[in-house]
Protein backbone atom coordinates (compact mmCIF):
# COMPACT_ATOMS: atom_id res chain seq x y z
CA UNK A 1 0.00 0.00 0.00
CA UNK A 2 2.69 2.47 0.99
CA UNK A 3 5.75 0.75 -0.43
CA UNK A 4 5.95 2.85 -3.56
CA UNK A 5 5.80 6.25 -1.82
CA UNK A 6 8.97 8.26 -2.32
CA UNK A 7 10.11 10.40 0.60
CA UNK A 8 12.98 12.89 0.78
CA UNK A 9 14.59 13.96 4.06
CA UNK A 10 16.60 17.19 4.03
CA UNK A 11 18.42 17.57 7.35
CA UNK A 12 22.08 18.29 8.13
CA UNK A 13 22.26 16.01 11.17
CA UNK A 14 23.15 12.53 9.87
CA UNK A 15 22.49 10.87 13.24
CA UNK A 16 19.04 12.32 13.52
CA UNK A 17 18.35 11.39 9.90
CA UNK A 18 19.40 7.80 10.63
CA UNK A 19 16.79 7.76 13.41
CA UNK A 20 13.85 8.85 11.28
CA UNK A 21 14.95 7.08 8.10
CA UNK A 22 14.93 3.75 9.94
CA UNK A 23 11.35 4.34 11.07
CA UNK A 24 10.19 5.34 7.59
CA UNK A 25 12.09 2.54 5.84
CA UNK A 26 10.68 0.11 8.36
CA UNK A 27 7.17 1.22 7.44
CA UNK A 28 7.84 0.49 3.79
CA UNK A 29 8.57 3.94 2.43
CA UNK A 30 11.41 4.56 -0.01
CA UNK A 31 13.47 7.28 1.65
CA UNK A 32 16.24 9.39 0.15
CA UNK A 33 18.39 11.79 2.14
CA UNK A 34 20.06 15.13 1.39
CA UNK A 35 22.16 16.92 3.98
CA UNK A 36 21.75 20.46 2.67
CA UNK A 37 19.19 22.43 0.64
CA UNK A 38 21.37 22.39 -2.47
CA UNK A 39 21.53 18.59 -2.63
CA UNK A 40 17.87 18.57 -1.63
CA UNK A 41 16.91 20.61 -4.67
CA UNK A 42 19.05 18.46 -6.91
CA UNK A 43 17.19 15.40 -5.62
CA UNK A 44 13.77 17.05 -6.03
CA UNK A 45 14.56 17.89 -9.65
CA UNK A 46 15.94 14.47 -10.49
CA UNK A 47 12.96 12.46 -9.28
CA UNK A 48 9.32 12.76 -8.29
CA UNK A 49 8.77 12.67 -4.53
CA UNK A 50 5.52 12.26 -2.62
CA UNK A 51 6.65 14.03 0.55
CA UNK A 52 9.48 16.20 1.82
CA UNK A 53 10.64 16.04 5.44
CA UNK A 54 12.52 19.27 6.07
CA UNK A 55 14.71 20.52 8.90
CA UNK A 56 14.69 24.27 9.67
CA UNK A 57 18.06 25.09 11.18
CA UNK A 58 20.67 24.00 8.66
CA UNK A 59 24.01 25.43 7.67
CA UNK A 60 24.41 29.03 8.75
CA UNK A 61 20.84 29.60 9.84
CA UNK A 62 17.26 28.98 8.87
CA UNK A 63 18.09 27.50 5.49
CA UNK A 64 15.08 25.20 5.74
CA UNK A 65 12.77 28.22 5.62
CA UNK A 66 14.46 29.45 2.46
CA UNK A 67 14.13 26.03 0.93
CA UNK A 68 10.42 25.77 1.72
CA UNK A 69 9.82 29.20 0.20
CA UNK A 70 11.74 28.32 -2.94
CA UNK A 71 9.81 25.09 -3.32
CA UNK A 72 6.50 26.97 -3.24
CA UNK A 73 7.74 29.20 -6.05
CA UNK A 74 8.50 26.30 -8.39
CA UNK A 75 5.41 25.22 -10.30
CA UNK A 76 6.69 21.66 -10.59
CA UNK A 77 7.16 21.36 -6.82
CA UNK A 78 4.43 23.61 -5.49
CA UNK A 79 2.08 20.79 -4.49
CA UNK A 80 4.69 18.67 -2.76
CA UNK A 81 3.60 18.15 0.87
CA UNK A 82 6.21 19.44 3.32
CA UNK A 83 6.59 18.15 6.86
CA UNK A 84 8.84 20.35 8.96
CA UNK A 85 10.77 18.58 11.70
CA UNK A 86 12.51 21.18 13.80
CA UNK A 87 14.57 21.35 16.97
CA UNK A 88 12.44 24.04 18.54
CA UNK A 89 8.99 25.01 17.37
CA UNK A 90 9.38 28.60 18.45
CA UNK A 91 12.57 28.87 16.44
CA UNK A 92 10.20 29.94 13.78
CA UNK A 93 8.64 32.62 15.95
CA UNK A 94 12.14 33.56 17.05
CA UNK A 95 13.11 34.21 13.46
CA UNK A 96 9.94 36.13 12.80
CA UNK A 97 9.45 38.22 15.93
CA UNK A 98 5.99 39.48 16.74
CA UNK A 99 4.22 36.52 15.20
CA UNK A 100 2.35 33.72 16.88
CA UNK A 101 4.23 30.65 18.06
CA UNK A 102 2.88 28.53 15.23
CA UNK A 103 2.52 31.08 12.47
CA UNK A 104 1.57 30.25 8.94
CA UNK A 105 4.82 31.87 7.98
CA UNK A 106 5.12 29.69 4.96
CA UNK A 107 2.91 27.15 3.32
CA UNK A 108 4.07 23.99 5.04
CA UNK A 109 1.63 21.30 5.81
CA UNK A 110 2.71 20.05 9.18
CA UNK A 111 5.24 20.75 11.87
CA UNK A 112 6.81 18.32 14.34
CA UNK A 113 9.38 18.80 17.05
CA UNK A 114 12.56 16.74 17.43
CA UNK A 115 12.76 14.05 18.68
CA UNK A 116 9.57 12.62 17.26
CA UNK A 117 7.88 9.45 18.51
CA UNK A 118 7.79 6.81 15.73
CA UNK A 119 4.00 6.43 15.85
CA UNK A 120 3.48 10.19 15.62
CA UNK A 121 5.88 10.48 12.70
CA UNK A 122 4.20 7.67 10.76
CA UNK A 123 0.76 9.07 11.53
CA UNK A 124 1.66 12.52 10.17
CA UNK A 125 3.34 11.07 7.11
CA UNK A 126 0.31 8.87 6.36
CA UNK A 127 -2.07 11.81 6.84
CA UNK A 128 -0.06 14.12 4.56
CA UNK A 129 0.22 11.50 1.84
CA UNK A 130 -3.50 10.77 2.07
CA UNK A 131 -4.35 14.49 1.90
CA UNK A 132 -2.08 14.96 -1.11
CA UNK A 133 -3.70 11.95 -2.75
CA UNK A 134 -7.18 13.44 -2.55
CA UNK A 135 -5.90 16.87 -3.56
CA UNK A 136 -4.71 15.82 -7.00
CA UNK A 137 -6.00 12.38 -7.86
CA UNK A 138 -5.35 12.80 -11.59
CA UNK A 139 -1.58 12.83 -11.07
CA UNK A 140 -1.47 9.41 -9.45
Amino acid sequence: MTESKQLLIVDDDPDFVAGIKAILDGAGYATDVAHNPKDGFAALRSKRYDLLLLDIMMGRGAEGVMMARKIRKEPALRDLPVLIITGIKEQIAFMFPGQAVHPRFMPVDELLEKPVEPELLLEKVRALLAAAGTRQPEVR
Partner: protein
Amino acid sequence: MSVQNSIKILIIDDEEIVLESCTAILRGEGYDLATASDGTRGLALLQEIRPDIVVVDLKMPGLSGFDVLERIREADPTMVTLVMTGYATVQSAVEAMKRGAYDFLPKPFTPDEFRLIVRRSVEKRTLVLETIALRRERELLREHFASIVSHELKAPLAAVQQNLFVLERELAPAATEDQRGRLARIKVRIGDLLQLIETWRRGVSVDIEAIKARRAAVPVSLPIGKAVESLADAAARKEIDLTASVPEPAPVVWGDQGTLTETLVNLIGNAVKYSRVGGRIAVSAEADDAEVRIAVADNGVGIAPEDMPLVFDAFYSGRPGAAGERGSGLGLAISRRVIEAHGGSIAVQSTPGKGSTFVITLPLHRDDGPDGPRPGA
Protein backbone atom coordinates in the same frame (compact mmCIF):
# COMPACT_ATOMS: atom_id res chain seq x y z
CA MET B 1 52.07 42.38 26.09
CA SER B 2 52.02 41.39 22.46
CA VAL B 3 52.52 43.95 19.74
CA GLN B 4 49.01 43.86 18.32
CA ASN B 5 47.50 44.21 21.78
CA SER B 6 49.82 46.94 23.03
CA ILE B 7 48.12 49.85 24.72
CA LYS B 8 48.08 52.99 22.59
CA ILE B 9 48.73 56.24 24.41
CA LEU B 10 48.27 59.68 22.88
CA ILE B 11 49.87 62.66 24.62
CA ILE B 12 48.61 66.13 23.74
CA ASP B 13 50.60 69.13 24.99
CA ASP B 14 51.75 72.40 23.43
CA GLU B 15 55.15 72.23 25.12
CA GLU B 16 57.66 70.21 23.10
CA ILE B 17 59.72 69.52 26.23
CA VAL B 18 56.77 67.92 28.02
CA LEU B 19 56.00 65.65 25.06
CA GLU B 20 59.62 64.61 24.87
CA SER B 21 60.01 63.87 28.55
CA CYS B 22 56.72 62.02 28.76
CA THR B 23 57.63 59.75 25.85
CA ALA B 24 61.08 59.26 27.33
CA ILE B 25 59.57 58.18 30.65
CA LEU B 26 57.17 55.70 29.04
CA ARG B 27 59.63 54.33 26.49
CA GLY B 28 60.47 50.72 27.27
CA GLU B 29 57.16 50.11 29.06
CA GLY B 30 55.72 48.41 25.96
CA TYR B 31 53.20 51.09 25.07
CA ASP B 32 52.46 52.38 21.61
CA LEU B 33 53.10 56.14 21.91
CA ALA B 34 51.91 59.09 19.84
CA THR B 35 52.07 62.83 20.47
CA ALA B 36 50.30 65.97 19.25
CA SER B 37 51.26 69.58 19.86
CA ASP B 38 47.74 71.00 20.07
CA GLY B 39 44.12 70.01 20.61
CA THR B 40 43.08 70.07 16.93
CA ARG B 41 45.96 67.84 15.83
CA GLY B 42 45.35 65.67 18.85
CA LEU B 43 41.73 65.06 17.93
CA ALA B 44 42.67 64.30 14.31
CA LEU B 45 45.24 61.76 15.48
CA LEU B 46 42.72 60.37 17.93
CA GLN B 47 40.36 59.49 15.07
CA GLU B 48 43.19 57.84 13.22
CA ILE B 49 44.89 55.72 15.86
CA ARG B 50 42.00 55.19 18.36
CA PRO B 51 44.19 55.34 21.47
CA ASP B 52 43.37 53.54 24.69
CA ILE B 53 44.59 56.36 26.86
CA VAL B 54 44.84 60.10 26.15
CA VAL B 55 47.04 62.32 28.27
CA VAL B 56 46.06 65.94 27.71
CA ASP B 57 47.35 69.27 28.96
CA LEU B 58 44.54 71.47 30.23
CA LYS B 59 46.06 74.78 29.27
CA MET B 60 46.88 75.00 25.57
CA PRO B 61 46.47 77.71 22.97
CA GLY B 62 43.52 77.08 20.63
CA LEU B 63 41.41 74.12 21.66
CA SER B 64 41.73 73.79 25.44
CA GLY B 65 42.19 70.54 27.33
CA PHE B 66 38.60 70.82 28.56
CA ASP B 67 37.37 71.02 24.95
CA VAL B 68 39.47 68.01 24.02
CA LEU B 69 38.01 66.05 26.95
CA GLU B 70 34.53 66.99 25.83
CA ARG B 71 35.16 65.81 22.26
CA ILE B 72 36.71 62.56 23.41
CA ARG B 73 33.72 61.84 25.60
CA GLU B 74 31.44 62.41 22.63
CA ALA B 75 33.58 60.35 20.25
CA ASP B 76 34.37 57.40 22.52
CA PRO B 77 33.53 57.51 26.22
CA THR B 78 35.45 54.31 26.81
CA MET B 79 38.82 56.01 26.20
CA VAL B 80 40.59 56.72 29.46
CA THR B 81 41.70 60.33 29.76
CA LEU B 82 44.35 61.83 32.03
CA VAL B 83 44.79 65.57 32.45
CA MET B 84 47.91 67.44 33.46
CA THR B 85 48.43 71.08 34.09
CA GLY B 86 50.79 73.51 35.68
CA TYR B 87 47.91 75.48 37.09
CA ALA B 88 46.72 72.77 39.37
CA THR B 89 43.74 73.90 41.31
CA VAL B 90 41.05 71.82 42.94
CA GLN B 91 38.55 73.59 40.74
CA SER B 92 40.17 72.68 37.44
CA ALA B 93 40.63 69.09 38.63
CA VAL B 94 36.95 68.83 39.51
CA GLU B 95 36.01 70.44 36.20
CA ALA B 96 38.18 67.94 34.29
CA MET B 97 36.68 64.99 36.18
CA LYS B 98 33.22 66.31 35.36
CA ARG B 99 34.11 66.15 31.71
CA GLY B 100 35.11 62.56 32.00
CA ALA B 101 38.80 62.66 32.96
CA TYR B 102 39.88 59.56 34.85
CA ASP B 103 42.69 61.19 36.80
CA PHE B 104 44.59 64.39 37.29
CA LEU B 105 48.34 65.00 37.33
CA PRO B 106 49.73 68.35 38.59
CA LYS B 107 52.92 69.64 36.92
CA PRO B 108 55.69 69.25 37.71
CA PHE B 109 55.63 65.51 38.28
CA THR B 110 58.36 62.92 38.73
CA PRO B 111 58.87 60.10 36.20
CA ASP B 112 57.66 57.61 38.82
CA GLU B 113 54.47 59.57 39.43
CA PHE B 114 53.80 59.66 35.72
CA ARG B 115 54.55 55.96 35.21
CA LEU B 116 52.30 55.06 38.14
CA ILE B 117 49.31 57.10 36.98
CA VAL B 118 49.66 55.73 33.44
CA ARG B 119 49.78 52.19 34.78
CA ARG B 120 46.61 52.79 36.76
CA SER B 121 44.98 54.19 33.64
CA VAL B 122 45.99 51.09 31.70
CA GLU B 123 44.35 48.93 34.35
CA LYS B 124 41.24 51.05 34.15
CA ARG B 125 41.19 50.78 30.36
CA THR B 126 41.61 47.01 30.52
CA LEU B 127 38.68 46.76 32.92
CA VAL B 128 36.55 48.98 30.71
CA LEU B 129 37.31 46.84 27.68
CA GLU B 130 36.62 43.63 29.57
CA THR B 131 33.32 44.99 30.82
CA ILE B 132 32.31 45.96 27.30
CA ALA B 133 33.27 42.56 25.97
CA LEU B 134 31.35 40.78 28.72
CA ARG B 135 28.30 42.94 28.24
CA ARG B 136 28.33 42.33 24.51
CA GLU B 137 28.75 38.62 25.09
CA ARG B 138 25.81 38.62 27.47
CA GLU B 139 23.63 40.44 24.96
CA LEU B 140 24.65 38.08 22.18
CA LEU B 141 24.01 35.10 24.36
CA ARG B 142 20.59 36.40 25.25
CA GLU B 143 19.71 37.19 21.67
CA HIS B 144 20.93 33.95 20.26
CA PHE B 145 20.22 31.73 23.20
CA ALA B 146 17.33 30.04 21.50
CA SER B 147 19.33 29.01 18.47
CA ILE B 148 22.50 28.22 20.42
CA VAL B 149 20.59 25.97 22.77
CA SER B 150 18.64 24.29 20.03
CA HIS B 151 21.69 23.51 18.04
CA GLU B 152 24.45 22.93 20.51
CA LEU B 153 22.51 21.16 23.22
CA LYS B 154 19.18 20.00 21.94
CA ALA B 155 20.19 18.71 18.52
CA PRO B 156 22.62 16.03 19.73
CA LEU B 157 20.17 14.87 22.39
CA ALA B 158 17.33 14.78 19.89
CA ALA B 159 19.48 12.63 17.59
CA VAL B 160 20.26 10.27 20.47
CA GLN B 161 16.64 10.04 21.51
CA GLN B 162 15.48 9.52 17.93
CA ASN B 163 17.80 6.56 17.51
CA LEU B 164 16.74 5.22 20.87
CA PHE B 165 13.14 5.25 19.67
CA VAL B 166 14.22 3.18 16.70
CA LEU B 167 16.33 0.84 18.80
CA GLU B 168 13.44 0.26 21.15
CA ARG B 169 11.16 -0.68 18.24
CA GLU B 170 13.75 -2.91 16.64
CA LEU B 171 14.70 -4.70 19.85
CA ALA B 172 11.25 -4.95 21.37
CA PRO B 173 10.36 -8.44 20.13
CA ALA B 174 13.58 -10.05 21.41
CA ALA B 175 14.38 -7.93 24.46
CA THR B 176 14.05 -9.25 27.97
CA GLU B 177 11.98 -7.43 30.57
CA ASP B 178 15.21 -6.04 32.09
CA GLN B 179 16.50 -4.78 28.77
CA ARG B 180 13.21 -3.09 27.99
CA GLY B 181 13.33 -1.47 31.43
CA ARG B 182 16.83 -0.15 30.80
CA LEU B 183 15.83 1.30 27.45
CA ALA B 184 12.82 2.93 29.08
CA ARG B 185 15.02 4.48 31.77
CA ILE B 186 17.41 5.92 29.20
CA LYS B 187 14.49 7.32 27.26
CA VAL B 188 12.99 8.97 30.32
CA ARG B 189 16.30 10.51 31.42
CA ILE B 190 17.06 11.89 27.98
CA GLY B 191 13.50 13.17 27.78
CA ASP B 192 13.97 14.93 31.13
CA LEU B 193 17.19 16.50 29.91
CA LEU B 194 15.51 17.76 26.73
CA GLN B 195 12.73 19.18 28.89
CA LEU B 196 15.24 20.87 31.17
CA ILE B 197 17.03 22.52 28.26
CA GLU B 198 13.72 23.67 26.90
CA THR B 199 12.79 25.16 30.26
CA TRP B 200 16.08 27.06 30.51
CA ARG B 201 15.71 28.32 27.01
CA ARG B 202 12.20 29.53 27.73
CA GLY B 203 13.30 31.14 30.97
CA VAL B 204 15.66 33.35 29.08
CA SER B 205 13.29 34.16 26.30
CA VAL B 206 9.89 34.78 27.92
CA ASP B 207 8.67 37.60 25.75
CA ILE B 208 6.10 39.58 27.68
CA GLU B 209 5.18 41.78 24.74
CA ALA B 210 4.59 38.72 22.55
CA ILE B 211 2.35 37.22 25.23
CA LYS B 212 0.33 40.43 25.41
CA ALA B 213 0.03 40.57 21.63
CA ARG B 214 -1.33 37.03 21.48
CA ARG B 215 -4.08 37.52 24.03
CA ALA B 216 -7.63 36.58 23.12
CA ALA B 217 -10.76 35.43 24.93
CA VAL B 218 -9.89 32.04 26.42
CA PRO B 219 -12.28 29.89 28.48
CA VAL B 220 -10.11 28.58 31.34
CA SER B 221 -11.40 25.07 30.64
CA LEU B 222 -9.15 24.99 27.54
CA PRO B 223 -5.71 25.45 29.13
CA ILE B 224 -6.79 23.43 32.19
CA GLY B 225 -7.99 20.57 30.00
CA LYS B 226 -4.85 20.55 27.88
CA ALA B 227 -2.53 20.74 30.87
CA VAL B 228 -4.29 17.95 32.73
CA GLU B 229 -4.29 15.82 29.60
CA SER B 230 -0.58 16.31 28.99
CA LEU B 231 0.26 15.21 32.54
CA ALA B 232 -2.20 12.33 32.76
CA ASP B 233 0.48 9.76 31.93
CA ALA B 234 3.02 11.16 34.37
CA ALA B 235 0.38 11.16 37.11
CA ALA B 236 -0.73 7.63 36.23
CA ARG B 237 2.85 6.37 36.52
CA LYS B 238 2.84 7.47 40.17
CA GLU B 239 -0.75 6.29 40.63
CA ILE B 240 -1.78 9.85 41.38
CA ASP B 241 -5.44 10.77 41.20
CA LEU B 242 -5.43 13.88 38.98
CA THR B 243 -8.79 15.61 38.65
CA ALA B 244 -10.05 18.89 37.23
CA SER B 245 -13.25 20.75 37.98
CA VAL B 246 -14.32 23.85 36.10
CA PRO B 247 -17.74 25.48 36.44
CA GLU B 248 -20.12 25.49 33.44
CA PRO B 249 -19.96 27.71 31.49
CA ALA B 250 -16.23 28.11 32.02
CA PRO B 251 -14.98 31.53 33.17
CA VAL B 252 -13.29 33.40 30.32
CA VAL B 253 -9.99 35.29 30.63
CA TRP B 254 -8.22 37.61 28.22
CA GLY B 255 -5.06 35.63 27.71
CA ASP B 256 -2.55 33.73 25.66
CA GLN B 257 -3.67 30.13 25.61
CA GLY B 258 -0.21 28.72 24.91
CA THR B 259 1.61 30.28 27.84
CA LEU B 260 -1.37 29.79 30.18
CA THR B 261 -1.36 26.09 29.32
CA GLU B 262 2.38 25.98 29.83
CA THR B 263 2.04 27.60 33.25
CA LEU B 264 -0.56 25.07 34.31
CA VAL B 265 1.56 22.21 32.97
CA ASN B 266 4.33 23.60 35.09
CA LEU B 267 2.25 23.82 38.28
CA ILE B 268 0.62 20.41 37.81
CA GLY B 269 4.00 18.94 36.81
CA ASN B 270 5.46 20.26 40.07
CA ALA B 271 2.55 18.78 41.98
CA VAL B 272 3.21 15.39 40.36
CA LYS B 273 6.91 15.71 41.10
CA TYR B 274 6.36 16.56 44.77
CA SER B 275 3.55 14.05 45.35
CA ARG B 276 3.96 10.61 46.84
CA VAL B 277 2.86 7.51 44.97
CA GLY B 278 -0.92 7.24 45.24
CA GLY B 279 -1.31 10.97 45.96
CA ARG B 280 -4.08 13.32 44.91
CA ILE B 281 -3.97 16.45 42.76
CA ALA B 282 -7.04 18.60 42.26
CA VAL B 283 -7.15 21.37 39.66
CA SER B 284 -10.12 23.69 40.07
CA ALA B 285 -11.39 27.01 38.82
CA GLU B 286 -13.82 29.43 40.39
CA ALA B 287 -14.83 32.95 39.51
CA ASP B 288 -16.50 35.94 41.08
CA ASP B 289 -17.54 38.98 39.07
CA ALA B 290 -13.99 40.30 38.69
CA GLU B 291 -11.50 37.46 38.91
CA VAL B 292 -10.88 33.84 38.09
CA ARG B 293 -8.91 31.73 40.52
CA ILE B 294 -7.31 28.53 39.28
CA ALA B 295 -5.98 26.32 42.04
CA VAL B 296 -3.63 23.37 41.79
CA ALA B 297 -3.74 21.51 45.10
CA ASP B 298 -1.71 18.46 46.02
CA ASN B 299 -1.28 16.39 49.18
CA GLY B 300 2.44 15.91 48.57
CA VAL B 301 5.58 16.73 50.50
CA GLY B 302 4.84 20.46 50.82
CA ILE B 303 7.27 23.36 51.04
CA ALA B 304 9.32 24.23 54.11
CA PRO B 305 8.39 27.63 55.61
CA GLU B 306 11.92 28.97 55.08
CA ASP B 307 11.70 28.08 51.37
CA MET B 308 8.34 29.76 50.82
CA PRO B 309 9.64 33.28 50.02
CA LEU B 310 12.03 31.84 47.43
CA VAL B 311 9.89 29.50 45.37
CA PHE B 312 9.18 32.05 42.64
CA ASP B 313 12.84 33.10 42.30
CA ALA B 314 14.81 32.10 39.22
CA PHE B 315 17.21 29.18 39.69
CA TYR B 316 15.77 28.37 43.08
CA SER B 317 14.94 24.70 43.36
CA GLY B 318 13.51 23.26 46.54
CA ARG B 319 14.36 20.00 48.22
CA PRO B 320 14.25 16.95 46.00
CA GLY B 321 10.76 15.63 45.31
CA ALA B 322 9.16 12.45 46.60
CA ALA B 323 11.33 10.30 44.33
CA GLY B 324 14.41 12.50 44.49
CA GLU B 325 13.32 14.70 41.58
CA ARG B 326 14.73 18.18 41.32
CA GLY B 327 13.45 21.01 39.23
CA SER B 328 15.34 23.37 36.97
CA GLY B 329 14.56 26.17 39.39
CA LEU B 330 13.05 28.17 36.57
CA GLY B 331 9.54 26.83 36.14
CA LEU B 332 7.85 28.92 38.80
CA ALA B 333 9.86 32.02 37.91
CA ILE B 334 8.66 31.70 34.31
CA SER B 335 5.12 31.00 35.49
CA ARG B 336 5.07 34.14 37.55
CA ARG B 337 6.33 36.23 34.64
CA VAL B 338 3.70 34.76 32.35
CA ILE B 339 0.86 35.34 34.82
CA GLU B 340 2.04 38.88 35.57
CA ALA B 341 2.10 39.59 31.83
CA HIS B 342 -1.60 38.67 31.97
CA GLY B 343 -2.23 41.22 34.72
CA GLY B 344 -2.69 38.42 37.22
CA SER B 345 -0.87 37.03 40.21
CA ILE B 346 0.29 33.70 41.50
CA ALA B 347 0.49 32.61 45.13
CA VAL B 348 1.21 29.52 47.16
CA GLN B 349 0.09 28.03 50.46
CA SER B 350 1.80 25.00 51.85
CA THR B 351 2.10 22.79 54.90
CA PRO B 352 5.19 20.59 55.04
CA GLY B 353 4.17 16.97 54.89
CA LYS B 354 0.59 17.84 53.99
CA GLY B 355 0.83 19.41 50.55
CA SER B 356 0.82 22.65 48.59
CA THR B 357 -1.77 24.73 46.80
CA PHE B 358 -0.78 27.14 44.03
CA VAL B 359 -3.40 29.69 43.06
CA ILE B 360 -3.36 31.71 39.85
CA THR B 361 -5.61 34.77 39.90
CA LEU B 362 -6.51 36.32 36.54
CA PRO B 363 -8.84 39.20 35.71
CA LEU B 364 -12.14 37.94 34.33
CA HIS B 365 -12.77 38.86 30.71
CA ARG B 366 -16.06 40.63 30.13
CA ASP B 367 -17.85 40.91 26.85
CA ASP B 368 -19.14 44.47 27.05
CA GLY B 369 -22.00 44.88 24.63
CA PRO B 370 -21.77 46.36 21.13
CA ASP B 371 -18.09 47.34 21.34
CA GLY B 372 -17.18 43.70 21.59
CA PRO B 373 -14.65 42.15 23.88
CA ARG B 374 -12.86 44.50 26.18
CA PRO B 375 -9.29 43.63 26.93
CA GLY B 376 -8.72 43.07 30.61
CA ALA B 377 -6.07 44.75 32.74
